[in-house]
């Protein structure tokens, strides 16, 4: 039995195969799609998820975001973890490895 994933600085997040993070042109919005599921995302979540590629760690994602938005790294990293944890609890994010 897989344990419930706990997202920390070193976690390398990725989308499970049945979960798609996709841009809908007609609606001009990014969404998460899974069987019988549709998750709408706020702009910050979209920025984070665009960097989720199964290669980058939470820490490196956060670092880049904090530079990009000129925001303190520790706030960003806790926001990133919180958001990914939330998605992971619902089965939309898993760990690479």
């Amino acid at each position, binding site marked *: 039995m*897989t344990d419930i*994933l706990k997202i920390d600085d070193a976690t390398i997040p990725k989308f*499970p195969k*049945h979960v798609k993070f*996709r841009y809908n042109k007609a*609606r001009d919005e990014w*969404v998460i*799609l899974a*069987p019988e599921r549709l998750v709408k995302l706020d702009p910050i979540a979209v920025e984070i998820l665009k960097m989720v590629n199964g290669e980058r760690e939470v820490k490196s994602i956060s670092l880049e975001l904090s530079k990009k938005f000129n925001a303190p790294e520790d706030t960003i990293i806790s926001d990133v973890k919180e958001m990914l944890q939330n998605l992971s609890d619902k*089965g939309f994010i898993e760990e690479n490895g």
Partner: protein
Amino acid sequence: MDDIKNNNLKNASEHGIQAPLALLAELSHRCPLQCPYCSNPVQLEKKTGELTTDEWKSVIDQAVEMGMHQIHLSGGEPTVRHDLEDIVEHCSKEGLYTNLITSGVLLNPDRLKKLESLGLEHVQLSFQDTDHENADRIGGFKGGHAKKLEVAKWVRDVELPLTCNCVVHRQNIDNLENFIQMALDLDAERVEIAQVQYYGWALKNRAAFIPTPEQLDHATEIVEKARIDLKGKLVIDYVIPDYYAKHPKNCMGGWGRRFLNMNPKGDVLPCHAAETISHLKFDNVREKSLKWIWENSEAFNMYRGTDWMPDPCKSCDRKEIDWGGCRCQAMALTGDAKNTDPACSISPMHNEIFSMAAEEARRAPPEFIYRKYGVRFNSPI
């Protein structure tokens, strides 16, 4: 006539309703199985009337232009169509999340591999029971269950995500734990446990399917426990039969609010059972655009929003939560689609209908009436 709406009903925009999220595409009503609870209409569509490949492709283009996210390729049995590959490829190219809902019995490893490589993203495989003999009896297809177990393996071999669709009722509900175990053994991501919904074929067979309240409570307990035990490992979606619920389910997220359903000949329906409401006139993609239909089709606008509701729904504070329940069930059981869904405990007809159903559940189950072409269907009860 094509561009103006032909009635005085408010249309989708006037209701503040956006484009639909997903399209349920019934590619064909043909199916080698004969499940007596099949959700297809009792008057099944013939092969000759089915939309062509190009017609489906145009529908897909229109769905994408409207902003739909997902397509469910369903039936009947969608794999009877030899152009399924073309259709999947087109859906995927256009960016729709592409899901195949199948009984599996016509699939082989090569075809699955091909479908995966063309962009299929998810497979929902239906199971009638976990017991071979009983499963084959319910589906009316010998050797079906064994084949399905094999198909599930092939699905995983090509690394496609898998959902096991299990329809449960009094003749298999005692195997519920086995269903969940089967989904685990088959390495599925998700299992959908749905009680039979009673319209069309299923209503004809209600006495054969309806569980007792005790069976149902037991089932709910099992699911709740499994959900905790298997968190993070298996997603369990559970639909209880609304016969025993206090309030009806929020059917399709409300009539004409989120989804649309297309039958094999291109009629556009607010839900797969909408044809049981015989006074509704459906528009067809051979004559009108999908967008026009979503906006203006009378069949959609008739029960959109809350204006059409009589009491008790009209004055109920849940009316924008469950939208008065299921119109098809109201039609089937009360004779008027506008009535409050009798699954609701507030419906004046609830007690009479549901004590009758509960009574059926206590008696021995009758023989099935199998889903077949050409069976005539008049009065539901």
